[in-house]
């Protein structure tokens, strides 16, 4: 229906109505090692895109290029219809622009990366108050509601180091939600967790998917990816080897490599 508009590259303004994110011909090298070899993808608002692939296939690198935590070697990144201006070396051309775009992308890290010198509630209000300029009281109320939502209201005044990994990751999700992100970026949010803590984090993410959050989700949890995603991308050595709806990618994989991969993680 809106497919034609979403892929109209010459008119980003028209595309922005539906398109949340677009990556075009993304390349990234670390020295001589080319990790991303031309990745193209896009997601509409409300899409949940799962990114799967073997270790070292470039999943994290791709996610980190989207908010320029890594500097792409070349390519285009378009967030909500706005192309991020790049210098010749791939670094963002405008600090203002990249900061504004980043403050709309809610990143959740494998290692949580909460600020250890701040309590949970302070972690959640930090960006709204000190980057987005939301009044303190308002940010606080919203943060409490978010902590409540991820089941951590009674831990609001606790420092991250005193919490379990699952609790820390749920708090990190609340921190990302606090900026009301246009896209959430998850980089293996459950990989650092003890098995018994994985479920509580997936429950929160499942909730977000159900309420229509746009998400890019790098994960090794295949069952979960199949369950929550609208679209699955399989990366192999820096290229998209296969992609499609989860039933197709998981149920009827075409590529030999994907078949192998799915077998190896089953």
């Amino acid at each position: 229906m809106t497919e034609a508009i979403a892929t109209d590259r010459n008119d980003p303004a028209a595309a922005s109505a539906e398109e949340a994110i677009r990556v075009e011909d993304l390349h990234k090298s670390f020295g001589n090692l080319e990790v991303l070899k031309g990745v193209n993808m896009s997601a509409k608002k409300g899409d949940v895109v799962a990114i799967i692939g073997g270790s070292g296939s470039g999943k994290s690198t791709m996610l980190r290029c989207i908010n320029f935590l890594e500097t792409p070697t070349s390519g285009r990144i378009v967030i909500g219809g706005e192309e991020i201006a790049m210098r010749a070396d791939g670094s963002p051309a405008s600090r203002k622009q990249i900061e504004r775009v980043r403050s709309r992308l809610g990143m959740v890290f494998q290692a949580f990366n909460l600020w250890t010198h701040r309590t949970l509630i302070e972690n959640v209000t930090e960006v709204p108050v000190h980057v987005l300029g939301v009044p303190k009281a308002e940010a606080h109320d919203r943060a409490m509601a978010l902590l409540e939502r991820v089941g951590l209201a009674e831990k609001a005044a606790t420092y991250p180091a005193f919490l379990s990994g699952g609790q820390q990751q749920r708090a990190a999700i609340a921190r990302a939600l606090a900026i009301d992100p246009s896209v959430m970026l998850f980089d293996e949010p459950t990989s650092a967790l003890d098995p018994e803590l994985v479920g509580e984090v997936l429950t929160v993410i499942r909730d977000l998917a159900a309420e229509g959050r746009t998400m890019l989700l790098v994960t090794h949890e295949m069952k979960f990816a199949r369950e929550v995603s609208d679209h699955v991308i399989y990366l192999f050595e820096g290229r998209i080897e296969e992609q499609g709806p989860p039933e197709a990618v998981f149920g009827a994989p075409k590529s030999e490599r994907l078949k192998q991969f799915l077998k190896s993680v089953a």
Partner: protein
Amino acid sequence: MEQVIELLSLSPPGWGGNLLRGLLHSLEIALGAFGFGLLIGLGGAIGKLYGGPVLRDILAVYTTVVRAVPELVLILILYYVGTDLINKAAGAMGYGRVEISGVAAGIWVLGIVQGAYATEILRGAIKAIPIGQIEAARAFGMPPLKMLRRVTIPAMMSFAIPGLANLWLIATKDTALLAVVGFNELTLETRQAAASTRAYFTFFLAAGALYLMVTLLSGRVFARIEKWARKGQPGHRRAGA
């Protein structure tokens, strides 16, 4: 004993007042130099970690030279070079000789020495911050200066405090070296009192006690600061563990 009390009494002919004034001057300079050194150190650490090659080279020379040359020699060099330069500049602009305040000179000289050590302490502390905390700040669009204030400085604090506490104690003691350029801090006051009264033992013991008091008090203050800086971290000895 009575004689000792008389010698140390706060009003003349006792010398206690002079000693306390000297102590106050020492603390004034130590505080100023420590603060100045921290500023240099913060700039130096950031420069060493994130600066361009030229800046990094300059900073490497600075920290190496300052830490290699004996402090007494440095103080003499910095003091005479510093005052000379200021006077030359003043002369060139048509002013006469400038009277340079001892406190300002002392802070300048010791501050530069402290700055070299502070640079290394803070550089190490910043490097000890788990990289993810900095990445999280970047990922959420925090501008560099805000990140410094909201993330880098508070997060490095617990790593820096023990080193900085040492540096502060060195600052208080290094003020004694300023005696060589005739600044009337505690050591010089003590020497004068001792020489005038020939009660060397009494006065140097008194001065030693004053320095010790400063150290003990500082220890308490820094223990508090450290506790505050480590507030988000579980202790080494966990209760019940």
